[in-house]
C-alpha cells in the first residue's frame, strides 16, 4: 500500500533507510511491541490470544477506515462514537423484523448521520471538527432518547452468532473487518472517487479547478464514514450481546484518529494509507493489551500509551519542512 518512492534511491543508503522507517514506521513499532510481548507477557503467542486481539480491534479498525477517508480530505469526524451509539440503539428495536432488516436500518442511520455531517461541511462550509462535534454531542443523546437510556440484552440468535461465531477459526466480525479493509483499499487505490478524494484533500482549490465534484466527494466521504461507524456499532453490539448506547463507542474517535495518523495518513489530508491504518489500529490494540495483561495501573498505562504514540509518529515523521 505504501507508495515508497524508490526511484533511484540506493538501497541501504541513509536516504533509503530513512524513507523505509518513515513509510514502515508503524510496522517497525508493531514488530517491536510483539517482541516485547513475547518476552514479558504470558501466553502471548497463543491462538486464543491472537484471536482476542483481532476481535477486540474490530470496532476501532472499522471506524478508523472511515476516519482515514475523512482525514484524507483534510477533515475529521468526531461523531463516529455517537453514530455507533445510534446504531446500537436502533438494532434491538427492529430485530422484530429480522436481523437483516434491523442491520440495514442501522446502516441507513449511519448514512443519514454522514449525510448531515457531509452537508454541513460541503454545502454550508462549516469546519469539519465543529460540524461533527454537534453530532458527537447530540447523537448519543438521541440514541439514549430512542432507547430509553437503558442497556438492553440482545437475544437474537443470528446477531449473537455474528458476535461469537467463526468460520475456520476466524471470527465473523474479523472477517467483516477484513472485507471492509479490502473494499476501502480498492476504493482508495482503484476508483475514480478514491483518487478524487485524495486530490480534494491535497489541494481543494486545484481540485475544483480541475473540475472535480468536490462537494459530492466530501459528502460521499462522510456518508461512508457514517456507515462504517454504524457497522462498527452493529459488530460491537453483536459481540457484547447487548445494546449499550450510553457507553458503546465512547471516545472511539480519538482512538480511530490515532490509529489513522500513527498509520501514516497525515492530518493535513491528501493521502490515505489503508494498510497503515490497519497497522495503526492493531498497534493501539496491542499497547492496550500489553498494559492490561501486565497489570499496569491505569495512571502508568496512560503515560506509557502517550509516550508510545508519540514515539511511533516520531519514527515516521517527514524530514525537511518543504
Amino acid at each position: 500500500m505504501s507508495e515508497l518512492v524508490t526511484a533511484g534511491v540506493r538501497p541501504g543508503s541513509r536516504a533509503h533507510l530513512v524513507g523505509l522507517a518513515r513509510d514502515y514506521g508503524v510496522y517497525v513499532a508493531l514488530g517491536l511491541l510483539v517482541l516485547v510481548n513475547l518476552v514479558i507477557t504470558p501466553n502471548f503467542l497463543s491462538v486464543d490470544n491472537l484471536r482476542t486481539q483481532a476481535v477486540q480491534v474490530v470496532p476501532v479498525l472499522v471506524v478508523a477506515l472511515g476516519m482515514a477517508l475523512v482525514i484524507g480530505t483534510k477533515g475529521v469526524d468526531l461523531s463516529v462514537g455517537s453514530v455507533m451509539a445510534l446504531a446500537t440503539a436502533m438494532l434491538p428495536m427492529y430485530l422484530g423484523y429480522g436481523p437483516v432488516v434491523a442491520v440495514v436500518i442501522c446502516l441507513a442511520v449511519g448514512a443519514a448521520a454522514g449525510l448531515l455531517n457531509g452537508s454541513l461541511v460541503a454545502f454550508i462550509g462549516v469546519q469539519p471538527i465543529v460540524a461533527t462535534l454537534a453530532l458527537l454531542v447530540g447523537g448519543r443523546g438521541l440514541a439514549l432518547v430512542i432507547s430509553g437510556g437503558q442497556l438492553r440484552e440482545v437475544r437474537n440468535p443470528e446477531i449473537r452468532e455474528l458476535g461469537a461465531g467463526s468460520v475456520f477459526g476466524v471470527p465473523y466480525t474479523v472477517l467483516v473487518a477484513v472485507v471492509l479493509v479490502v473494499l476501502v483499499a480498492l476504493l482508495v487505490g482503484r476508483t475514480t472517487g478514491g483518487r478524487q478524494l485524495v486530490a480534494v484533500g491535497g489541494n481543494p482549490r486545484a481540485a475544483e479547478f480541475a473540475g472535480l465534484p468536490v462537494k459530492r466527494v466530501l459528502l460521499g466521504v462522510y456518508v461512508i464514514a457514517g456507515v462504517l461507524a454504524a457497522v462498527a456499532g452493529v459488530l460491537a453490539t453483536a459481540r457484547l450481546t447487548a445494546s449499550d448506547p450510553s457507553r458503546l463507542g465512547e471516545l472511539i474517535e480519538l482512538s480511530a484518529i490515532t490509529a489513522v495518523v500513527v498509520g501514516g495518513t497525515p492530518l493535513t489530508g491528501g493521502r490515505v494509507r489503508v494498510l497503515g491504518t490497519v497497522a495503526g489500529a492493531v498497534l493501539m490494540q496491542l499497547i492496550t493489551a500489553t498494559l492490561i495483561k501486565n497489570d499496569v495501573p491505569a495512571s502508568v498505562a496512560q503515560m506509557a500509551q502517550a509516550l508510545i504514540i508519540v514515539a511511533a509518529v516520531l519514527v515516521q515523521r517527514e524530514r525537511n519542512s518543504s
Partner: protein
Amino acid sequence: ANPEGGGANPGGTSGGGQQVTKTQDAGGAGCTLQQYGVEKLDLTKATVGFSQSEKEANPFRIAETASITAEAKRVGARLITTNANSDLGKQISDIQSMLAQGAQLLIVAPLNSEGLEPALRAAREKKVPVITVDRKLSSAAPCKDYLTFIGSDFVDQGKRAGEAMAKATGGTGKVAILLGSSGNNVTTDRTSGFKDYLKASAPGLQIVAEQTGDFAREKGQQVTEQLLQANPGITAIYAQNDEMALGAVTAVRSAGKKPGQDIKIVSVDGTRNAVESIVAGDLNAVIESNPRFGPLAFSTAQKFYAGETITPTVIIQDKSYDTANAKAEVANAY
C-alpha cells in the same frame, strides 16, 4: 415491535425496594432549623431543585432520578431538575442556576466528593438547605455546608462484596478486580473495603490483577478477556458494578469457562439484569446499592421543617443478593 423485551423496570417506586435507614450517625449534635439558619417551608408549595450528577443512562441514575421525581410529585412540590453530565463545573452552574430560578430546597447527587464548595456557598448565601444523596461530601461540614447526607456506605459495600466472595469461593483463589472509573471515590471505597476484608478475614484470596473497566459492560468484557489469557489461574472476579460483571460473564464464557462455577463473580449495584444473572447461575452474589432516594430525602426534609433534629449522616440499608434469595428478590431489583 420489540420482541427483544429485556430491559428493566425503570420506575423507582415499586414497593419492595424502598430504602431503609440502617444507621443514623449521631456523631455530631444533629441539625435543626435554627442551627442551620433557614426559614420554615411548606414542602407542598415549595420549589425543590434536584441536581443529578451523571446522565440517566444506567439503571442506578434512572432509578434515582425517577424516585425523586415521583416523590416530589407525591408530596406536591415543584421540582426543577438538572443534569451535570459528569462535568463538575456544570454541576456548580446547574445548582447556581436552580438557585437563580428560585429553588428553596436542594437535593444534590454530587459528582465528586470534593469540589462543590462554590455551589454550597451559593446555597448558604440564599439560605437554601442542601440534602446530599448517594455520595458523601468528604470535607464539607454538615449543618453548615449541607444539611445531611443520605446514602450507602461504599466501603461497607466493598467489605460485603469481600464477604460474599469468600463465601462463594470458600476462601481461597485468585481474584481479579474490575475497577470502576479512576478518580471516582466510589471506586476507591469499594476497593479499599474489599481489600481490607480480604486481608483481615480471607487471606486465602489473592488479588492477581486490578484493571479499570470504567463501569462499562464492553470494557469489562474486554479487560476480562485479556486478564484471563494472561492469568489462566484466575478463579474469581470482583466487579465494582453490575455492568462490568455482566461483561465479564460474556468474556468468561468465550474463554470456554463457566461463569459462576469455574470463575466466581461478585459485583455491586443490584440491577435487575444482575439479579437475574444470579438466578441463571452466571453471577454468584451482588451487593445492592439502593438508588431510591426520593421518599427518604423528602421525609427527612419534612422532619427538618417540622422542627426535628436531623443527623448529619443517614446510612441506608443495602440488601445483598445471592443464589439463596435472588429468585425471590428479582422483582425488587431496579
